């Protein structure tokens, strides 16, 4: 019964948005309100777990700017031709229909933490008792001289999945033999540490499939080392000999600028010309986190490692790529794991339900070539100062083909599992 009530209430609230008649979203009487900003791996999971586990005792609202969600994870496999764009795009319908969550398709512009309301782009206000901020990342375009939001139409970053991913795919597919790709890799900390290098593997896979023996992929990296480096470099040498060139800062001496007009990437050492240039700039927490006053000088949000509660506000939680999660990488898996801890803490706050000690985990799978998957992962527990890793593992170089195929198959199973866990089933 509570579900029915909440569902019909959701419809009413929706009608309110459409007519702009109500400055405040109507709410179920007397129920505590949890509001989530951002419907990605963190936010959608949190909304679903609060709704599911509170059994209708908490009124849950999810605010998301996009009508559907395209996952960053597995978007490289779309570039490589292993997945369709549709297969990595998900709807919010089940969160509304099966869990009674009010999904608001709109942009949150501001959080008035004193009044405990989220102010939407259309001026409407969404009140909360507990708020989860899960906006993901914003790109710092000018961290790469010469780069900008406009330049991203020519030199796509594709680090937020969606139209940018499709743009990169179209540009990749239009290349001819002998044409080169230059990737400007991001500095730490950034979303999906192995992501740029899995993407390079997918570029190389496409070239190999097409018989592009004269094309090269050049990586200009501001980092001296990168995630799963030995595994990727082993794979590149094995499958794509001579095709991938990685340059760390001790070789290229520093990035000077990129020029969207000419496709040039200038470094201290040399100027590299790309027929396709993929610039992944430095990153910070999504805009709303900064506007809500939740970030520190790093551009990300400090949190209490035991609960994901913001250090700036006891009634606000920050999860996913926007938070400072200690040893945890910025990944969809991490966000999903953090969401469950935050959801439990919020239920404890609002309904007095039992709060168990926080546990976190992460695994990142990467595909190097068809049926050759690798993984890295860890478990984490909160300490006084941070979320600290308690045990880790990583795939080994020289593993046999059967194990690598099993790892890849596992990643496909994980994709189905985590997307069901995020968006409901």
């Amino acid at each position: 019964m509570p579900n029915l009530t909440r569902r019909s209430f959701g419809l009413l609230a929706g009608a309110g948005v459409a007519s702009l008649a109500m400055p405040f979203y109507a709410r179920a009487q007397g129920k505590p309100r949890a509001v989530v900003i951002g419907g990605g791996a963190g936010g959608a999971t949190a909304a679903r777990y609060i709704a599911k586990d509170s059994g209708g005792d908490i009124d849950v609202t999810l605010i998301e700017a996009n009508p559907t969600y395209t996952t960053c994870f597995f978007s490289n496999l779309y570039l490589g031709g292993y997945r369709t764009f549709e297969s990595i795009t998900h709807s919010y319908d089940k969160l509304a229909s099966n869990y009674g969550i009010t999904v608001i398709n709109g942009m949150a512009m501001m959080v008035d933490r004193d009044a405990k309301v989220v102010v939407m782009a259309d001026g409407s206000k969404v009140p909360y008792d507990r708020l989860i901020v899960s906006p993901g990342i914003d790109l710092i375009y000018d961290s790469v001289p010469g780069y900008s939001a406009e330049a991203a139409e020519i030199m796509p970053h594709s680090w937020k999945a969606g139209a940018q991913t499709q743009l990169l795919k179209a540009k990749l597919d239009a290349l001819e033999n002998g044409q080169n790709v230059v990737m400007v890799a991001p500095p730490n900390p950034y979303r999906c540490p192995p992501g740029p290098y899995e993407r390079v593997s997918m570029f190389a896979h496409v070239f190999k499939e097409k018989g592009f023996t004269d094309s090269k992929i050049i990586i200009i990296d501001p980092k001296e080392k990168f995630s799963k480096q030995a595994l990727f470099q082993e794979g590149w040498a094995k499958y794509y000999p001579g095709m991938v060139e990685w340059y760390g800062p001790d070789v290229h001496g520093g990035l000077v600028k990129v020029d969207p007009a000419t496709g040039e990437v200038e470094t201290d050492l040399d100027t590299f010309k790309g027929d396709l240039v993929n610039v992944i700039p430095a990153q910070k927490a999504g805009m709303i986190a900064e506007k809500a006053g939740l970030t520190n000088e790093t551009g990300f949000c400090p949190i209490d490692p035991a609960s994901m509660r913001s250090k700036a506000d006891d009634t606000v939680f920050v999860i996913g790529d926007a938070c400072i999660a200690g040893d945890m990488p910025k990944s969809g898996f991490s966000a999903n794991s953090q969401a469950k801890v935050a959801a439990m803490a919020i239920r404890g706050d609002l309904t007095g339900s039992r709060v168990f000690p926080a546990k976190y985990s992460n695994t990142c799978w990467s595909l190097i070539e068809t049926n050759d998957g690798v993984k890295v992962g860890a478990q984490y527990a909160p300490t006084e100062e941070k979320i600290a890793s308690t045990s880790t593992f990583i795939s080994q170089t020289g593993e046999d083909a059967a194990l690598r195929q099993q790892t890849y198959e596992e990643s496909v199973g994980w994709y189905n599992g985590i997307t069901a866990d995020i968006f409901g089933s």
Partner: protein
Amino acid sequence: MRLQIYTQAIWRPRVPSSNRVRSSFPQTTRALIFAGLTAIGALTSGSTFAGDIQQGEKLYKACKACHQIGEGARNGVGPHLDGLFGRVAGSIDGFKYSNAMKAKGEDGLVWDEASLDQYLAKPRAFVPGTRMSYLGMKKPEDRTAIIAYLKAQSVAAPSVDPTAAAPARAEIGSAAMQIEGDAEYGEYLSSECVTCHQLSGHADGIPSIVGWPNEAFIRALFEYKSNIRTNQVMQNMTLNLGNEEIAALAAYFGSLDPK
């Protein structure tokens, strides 16, 4: 080698050879030749089976963590395989089948050499939504061998010493098995598992873990903990799980019905 391939060809068709012989009788000469050939096939297949069965027994090691066969066989993680040939798919009372497998049975799927051959080649292609986590057996001769083994074990149901049927092995995880698992605690802990293992019980690349018998679930987790099973993610995940946690997870996932 050539003979073996030939006998398999006789043995593997969808229509049982006895039916074929009968339908061939109205034709005269050709029928006699055909019947003769079939008889040779039947004779030689006996000896071929013997070889296959040994190979099949080796291959069956991949199955026996989940499936019991022979006298005293019971349902485990997977259904028992006694009386398998001629059994309607998804039809053992009390076993938690996927909806997909039950639907196949309702559509008339009966396990025989041909249907098992297709299923074992790629279980998830033949029954999309099956709970069986096995990826598939590529080589046709391996499938022939394991089907021969299954047939020998299942149909003949060789008499087994009842005490041997319940091996008194030093049970790993026995302390956890004696704890009454707190399913509510298990539900909380399960949030770490369901990032990969689907609550629906669907298995695609990640095993289905819903509806398992309590002891099998506990044993599996302890086998990861003690590195008998070697998946890195699971070894890592189980590292910090104690008896209470494992018993709770077993109780929770065991209480679920696959979809």
